[in-house]
């Protein structure tokens, strides 16, 4: 459970930082204001939707941290047999990176109000994300063709479970991306569009990060890395 505890420590760090800006040491019982004279206070200047997405991403991060924790705990048992990583995953990783880059371009373009670039970026991001999903399904098919079935070994089970869960989050993101893309073509208000594009980009970068982390986990590098750290510490 150490992975999830480290994750929660990071969240606690954020929460602590935020709380430290909430004047926790004030004595509210002494405060009273005359009419029209109210205490100004820090509220994030970020749009509410971005904060909402940020909180949601913390929940998603928590979910994958828990899967990782479970992965490490189950891995320690004797019947674990690592499965080979299909080479295709590298191509898929490339696709997801491209998708993220395309959305970043779209987001920059939206700030400059270059609508054509926004549309291009959104379409490219959507297509590469779909290519990623198709690639993941093909990787699954290759593995099953080679006899690595879901239930035959816990390493396989975790591989399908975690990649599947990540894929579902991409599918959910595609719904949002689809709505944004439709808006870009149907002439949504530029400010609104910019926010939507930025939200999509944020979500995509996060899922790319999650993918890189779980790729490292499933390929076994994460375990090696942790072993090295452990040796350095002891």
């Amino acid at each position, binding site marked *: *459970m150490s992975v*999830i*505890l480290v994750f*929660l420590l990071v*969240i*606690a760090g954020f*929460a602590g930082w935020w*709380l430290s800006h*909430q*004047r*926790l*040491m*004030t*004595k*509210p*019982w*002494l*405060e*009273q*204001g*005359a*009419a*029209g*004279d*109210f*205490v*100004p*206070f820090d*509220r*994030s*200047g*970020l*749009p*509410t*939707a971005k*904060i*909402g997405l940020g*909180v*949601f991403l*913390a*929940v998603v991060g*928590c*979910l994958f941290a*828990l*899967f990782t924790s*479970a992965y490490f*705990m*189950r891995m320690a*048992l*004797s*019947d674990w047999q690592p499965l080979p990583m299909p080479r295709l995953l590298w191509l898929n990783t490339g696709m997801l990176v491209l998708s993220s880059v395309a959305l970043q371009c779209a987001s920059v373009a939206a700030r400059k109000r270059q609508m054509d670039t926004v549309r291009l970026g959104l379409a490219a991001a959507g297509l590469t994300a779909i290519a990623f999903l198709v690639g993941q399904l093909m990787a699954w098919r290759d593995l099953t063709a080679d006899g690595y079935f*879901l*239930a035959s070994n*816990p390493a396989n*089970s975790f591989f399908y*479970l975690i990649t599947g*869960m990540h894929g579902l989050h991409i599918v959910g993101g595609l719904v949002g991306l689809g709505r944004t893309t439709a808006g870009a073509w149907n002439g949504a208000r530029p*400010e*609104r569009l910019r*926010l939507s594009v930025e939200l999509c980009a944020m979500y995509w970068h996060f899922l790319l990060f999650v993918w890189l982390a779980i790729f490292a986990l499933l390929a076994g590098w994460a375990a090696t890395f942790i072993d090295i750290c452990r040796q350095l510490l002891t």
Partner: protein
Amino acid sequence: MVDVTPADAVPPAEVAEMELYHPHSWWTKYVFSQDAKVIAIQYSGTATAIGLVALVLSWLMRLQLGFPGTFDFITPEAYYQFITMHGMIMVIYLLTALFLGGFGNYLIPLMVGARDMVFPYVNMLSYWIYLLAVLVLVSSFFAPGGPTGAGWTLYPPQAIMTGTPGGQEWGIILMLVSLILFIIGFTMGGLNYVVTVLQARTRGMTMMRLPLTVWGIFTATVMALLAFPALFVACVMMLLDRALGTSFFMPAVVEMGEQLQHNGGSPILFQHLFWFFGHPEVYIVALPAFGIVSDLISTHARKNIFGYRMMVWAIVGIGALSFVVWAHHMYVSGMHPYFGFFFATTTLIIAIPTAIKVYNWVLTLWRGDIHLTIPMLFAMAFIVTFVNGGLTGLFLGNVVVDVPLSDTMFVVAHFHMVMGVAPILVIFGAIYHWYPKVTGRMLNETLGRFHFWVTFLGAYLIFFPMHYIGLMGVPRRYAEMTDVTVMTESAHHLNSFISIMAFIVGFAQIVFLFNLIWSIRHGREAGGNPWRATTLEWQTPQTPPAHGNFGKELPIVYRWAYDYSVPGAKEDFIPQNMPGTFGPSREPA
């Protein structure tokens, strides 16, 4: 959305008509409503309805325990199904949904001075997914083989094996699917509660001026958002074990001479995941109760809350600590003694902020102008009950005491006191307190006092003897305990007594429900602020608050939520939105 500068982040006092969602038909106004107040009532109604099912299940259990062998229709299998569904419904579908979905939705926007939740559409979805989760849960009663009988903790391997009711039938699958849906729905609602508190507070409402109710619900929601994923992970993995034959949790099992396809899985892994959710869940239910009870006590004792800052810090501290105590539910799972030592230590440390809260409640009452209204009665009953349940928690938090008491009725008595009866008492108090705001009418006083005394005394008469039965060594989860040496004759009599009390207390709840319905029409007119309270929900122009909560202009907050009996003030309460300086030694902010 225009370029947002920090100045824009403070909402303008007047909100243009078009910014607020307006329902166009009866359906969008009362059924598929995006108004947090309607959603709150939908959540509360659904939670109460499913809670009644759980109440009936507890009666059936008590029939069996109190009068074993008398009722043929309660087979051991049926008994297991009753305990499982009773526990799951009460903890998740009733308490969590009612505190966060019900009170959270109703009170957060009103108390922070917002027109609605920040994402009303997502908020509506949250309720409908919750309803779907409840329906899936109910459907398991009608599925072949009936609902799961795995115990509310759903421990594998037994949860998905043939011997357990529903284990190889539909019961466990429907249970897991229902929980997964609940978590998805809750996450949608939870995002709203958190972001509304972060972003939609009205002008002047700093975090340190929030009523403690909002602090409690806010912190509990943050915890729930981080804890429910653990249950989600556990449910998904168990669903795969059950449906597709994986071995996340399932060890190699020989069942009726037949080797199952599972191999090498770890039931302990499930326990870790389950309790990583399960322990924070106790505080997810308790923190809103702590917050609400602080407001009830302060309002009905006409005195400011003692140690507001400490109360806030304690809420946050309890929330953080509750994530590092989960394995105290697993002392008997064969863990390393040093782990047991660690978790016993963290468990006992939690007692410190909790004790601070209890002292502060008592010190708020000290020399207050105590009005023994029904909300106040429930609030004081809560303090007593919570202390009682908390003290047995100190027993069970220590490994050496827990090991012999583990899986006895003592544990059942402990957690019913501390996270069953205590939060339910707060829920009742809160309903008596806020019902006038929701409906514009008071609940009937006589029926209310009857309800209080029967519930409070009855709950003690049920759960206090249960501690003794547990100390005698009577285990929990047994459908029948006849002809066993630990069950002496007196223990049998005690069990029958407990059962009779359970029926009486249950009957009082029916009276309460009748009161809720009857008073909508026939209750005394309440007016806008019957308790003369300071917080913003009592200052709305209409009662019940109209769509958009505060009329044309949002309130501005000039003070904290607890200005009661301020010397020099004309009345004994000063609403949060009243400007001006009162009292001798206070400087303007």
